[in-house]
Every structure is written in structure tokens, then in C-alpha cells.
């Protein structure tokens, strides 16, 4: 790590330390009970004590979120390709994809339990529904962003529809597609947790959503905090992985990727 990037990492780290110290100090000074607001040290202790169940729950939720994310990536890109293939189709169907954006997932989660039964499958579908829209919308924008001159070029050279899609439109859409996937990765975890609130009770292992609920019912607020932290950690992990994949794919050619070219 260079000194410049070390200094860059230092500022948020210092802010974190100061914030946690303040939190710890104030809670102790005012003698706030742990069930109302635990100190950071109490949360850390709970996390360490319950490390095993936390990890199991994170794995369960992570699996559901991953399935939901993979589904929305596949279905989203496919839907965008279909919608972009005809203006008529896009005009007819695109408005309805907005339902995906506005649907209150908590309200339809009971439906998912009815249809898929309680457990990981309903949770994954919840994650999928919540994370689908940004993939469709961004991929569609990307497919539409192809320069007209390049379309002319492909026409001039007699490119077939499939070749134009594969060699021009999809690669040109990649930067937008990865933007959509990054947004979807965070939403997939949120969708999984919300899904678990309603549909997560089943035989076998429980996810973070269940852990949050049971910690709340037992007023084990320190464990609740630890579970919430694990959930956001999970989201960050998925987000980071998608960002990394995007940066590696776009490295050589897109200005948004970090290592730009050196014009001569």
C-alpha cells in the first residue's frame, strides 16, 4: 500500500475509533442499560461468544442472497435483451417492471410462503424480486447506449442480429450492467433478510433475519447489533466481489475502471 492510500484509509479509521470511544463513554457515563443500547465492547463480546451461530446464520442468509442475486443477474440481463429487441415490446412491458421497484416485499412475503413454502426457497425468491429491477433498468440503458455509428458499422458489414448483440450491444452495455449488479448485490442481502422475517422459519439452519428476530424477542440487544453488523458485512462482501469482477472486466478499456491507459 502506498503512503497516499494509507493516509486515505487513516481518516475513516480515525473517525471510527473516535465514534466508538464516544459511544462507549456516553453509554457508560449515563449508565444506559444494555438491553436499550449496548456499548461497542458489549456487542463485540456478544459477537465473540455467539461467533458460531452468527457464522452459521450468515452462511444461510448468504446462500439465499447469492441464489437471489444470481437469479436476478440472469433473468435481469435476459429480460433487458428481450425488451431492447423491440421498441414495441419495451413500451408495452417496461412500465410493469416498475412494479418490481415499488412492490412492498414485506407485504408479498406471505404470498411467497404460500407458493414456495417456508424456508430458503421463499427467502431466495424474496431476494430475487428485490434485486431484479436495477439489473433490468441498467442493462437496458447500457444496451441503448450503443453509438449509432457503431450500429451503422455492423450493418455495413452485414452483421447478423445475434452477432450485433454478442459483439456490440452486450459488451457496450457492460459498464451499465455492472452498475446494476452492484446495486443488486446490496439489495439481494436486504431482500433475503426481509424474506427471512416472514418466511425464514423452517427446519434446519436459521438465517440472520431469524437471529435478529429472536435476539429482539429475548431483549438481547447486544446480539441483535452483532447480527445487524453481520448482515451489512455480508452485503459489503457481495458488493465488493461484484465491484472487483467489474473492475477486472473493464480494466483495459473503460475510463471508470481504476487503471486507465496512458495516451502517447
Amino acid at each position, binding site marked *: 500500500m502506498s503512503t497516499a492510500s494509507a493516509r486515505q484509509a487513516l481518516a475513516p479509521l480515525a473517525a471510527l475509533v473516535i465514534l466508538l470511544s464516544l459511544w462507549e463513554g456516553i453509554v457508560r457515563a449515563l449508565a444506559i442499560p444494555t438491553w436499550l443500547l449496548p456499548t461497542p465492547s458489549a456487542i463485540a463480546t456478544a459477537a465473540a461468544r455467539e461467533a458460531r451461530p452468527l457464522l452459521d446464520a450468515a452462511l444461510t442468509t448468504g446462500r439465499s442472497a447469492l441464489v437471489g442475486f444470481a437469479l436476478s443477474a440472469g433473468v435481469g440481463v435476459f429480460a433487458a435483451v428481450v425488451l431492447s429487441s423491440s421498441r414495441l415490446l419495451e413500451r408495452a412491458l417496461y412500465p410493469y417492471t416498475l412494479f418490481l421497484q415499488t412492490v412492498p416485499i414485506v407485504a408479498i412475503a406471505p404470498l411467497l410462503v404460500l407458493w414456495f413454502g417456508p424456508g430458503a426457497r421463499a427467502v431466495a425468491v424474496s431476494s430475487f424480486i428485490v434485486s431484479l429491477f436495477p439489473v433490468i433498468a441498467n442493462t437496458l440503458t447500457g444496451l441503448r447506449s450503443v*453509438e449509432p455509428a457503431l450500429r451503422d458499422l455492423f450493418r455495413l458489414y452485414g452483421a447478423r442480429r445475434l452477432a450485433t448483440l454478442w459483439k456490440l450491444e452486450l459488451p457496450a452495455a457492460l459498464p451499465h450492467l455492472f452498475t446494476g449488479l452492484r446495486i443488486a448485490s446490496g439489495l439481494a442481502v436486504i431482500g433475503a433478510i426481509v424474506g427471512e422475517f416472514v418466511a425464514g422459519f423452517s427446519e434446519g439452519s436459521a438465517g440472520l433475519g431469524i437471529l435478529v428476530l429472536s435476539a429482539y424477542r429475548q431483549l438481547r440487544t447486544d446480539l441483535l447489533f452483532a447480527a445487524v453488523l453481520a448482515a451489512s458485512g455480508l452485503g459489503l462482501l457481495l458488493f465488493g466481489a461484484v465491484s472487483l469482477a467489474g473492475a477486472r472486466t473493464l480494466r*483495459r478499456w473503460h475510463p471508470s475502471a481504476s487503471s486507465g491507459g496512458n495516451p502517447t
Partner: protein
Amino acid sequence: MALPHAPASAPLAPTDEGEGGVRIQLSDLRRTFPGGLTVLEGLELEVAAGSFVALLGPSGCGKSTLLRLVAGLDRPDGGTLTFSPPLERTRGERAPIAYVFQDAHLLPWRSVLDNAALPLELAGVPGPERRAAARAVLEQVGLGDATARYPAELSGGMRMRVSLARALVTRPRLLLLDEPFAALDELSRSRLDEQLRALWRELGMTVLFVTHSIAEATWLAERVVVLSRRPARVVLDRTLELPRERVATLRTEAAFARESRLLHEALERGEAL
């Protein structure tokens, strides 16, 4: 003949297609855009096979529309456009017409080599063969050692040369250029002009070059057609009295100035029409 930036011995891969240029005949050509804007009306023009013709005219006069019609990227509303020999081709054959845009318009996710090979790839030419052809043509435009680089790593002039290589890789019989070097600095532009003319001398295709620069038209072309304001009509059709062998210093000679002045006067007449 030796090129300014390429080793002299860099032949293109042999092709099975007929070499040489194509003759173009435009008759009573008309194009009106939706909304009623008539860009071309009653345009007559004949371009001999293997000639280098510059189309000179004010911005927005319909030069680009004319070029798009010739390329088949747009359809005329009236009149006829004939090529001889005819340019009909079936799928899978190499495109006989190439088009160079005002900007390089490369695919940023492809290396220089794969960009130059694209037209052959779309025609279904197998990998090794198309890469060999692309390498040869990149050699010809002086980019033999940049084949593995990506467009983002190139200067504007280099990108334009890749674009030119991509156009030449199919050994087209008709090369259309729409103000291709207008965005470049003066020096890169005159270098590319020189390179283009050398390539034309060597390959013998018909070239239609659209520009609004009098100096560029004079230096490059055998024949200059000056167009009026929209709808474009031919104001002057002149075969330049300049040596076939064009050197950089021609730009400072009296004959060059004389031809430029004639073109300039014609442009002004076209504005006044």
C-alpha cells in the same frame, strides 16, 4: 512505393475478390427527411472506377447524407444509384464498401488487432486468416507494433489509423470517408492525408472523401466536386491540375494555391445560391 510510417514491404493478404475500384453513377438523387427537410434534390454525379474524388461543401449541405446513401446506410427517396461492376453480395462475403467516420469509433473492449479484424470476423473469416490480414494492414498504416494495445491507450491519430486499417482490411473496392481527420491536429492530419493517398495509389480502390477543408481536398484528390448549400447541387466539378506524385511541400506551391483559390471561389458561389 514506400509509406511514411510503414516498412515498404507489407503486402496485404491476398484475397479472392476482384481488385480495383468501382464506378458510381448517381442520377436525379433525392433525399427528404421526415419533417420535410430536403437535403438532396436532383443530384447528378459520376465517379470513375479507381478515382479519388473529394466532396467539398459547407457544413450541413448534405455531403454526409450523400455518403450514407452511397454506403447503403440510408435510402434515397428518388433517383438511382448504380455501381459497376454491381456490388451486390451474399452473406458471408467480404464487404466491398468501407466507411470511415469522423471519429475513429473503435470498440474499446477490443485490442487494436481485433478491432482491425472485425469486418472479416463479421464476414465469417476464420481466426488465423483474419488476424494475419489485420496484422498486415496495421503494418501498412504504421501500427505494426501496437497490435496488442487497446484504444484507450492510443492517441487520436493512432486511433484514426486503426479505423483506417479496419476499413481497408476487407480490400474494399469503394472507400468512403466522412471528414475522417477533422478532429485531429494539423500535423497528424497532413500525415494521415499522405498515408491515405499512398494507400490509394497502392490499392487502387475508388475513394470518396467528404471534407470542408479546401487545403485537404486540394492536396488529396484527383478531382474535387464542390457542393452548394442545402439542397446540395454541384457548383464546380474540377479535375485538379496537380502532379500525380504529391509531396508535403506541394502545399506551398503556386499550382496548389491556384487550385485552392478556384475551389474557394466555387464554395462562395455555392453559399450565394
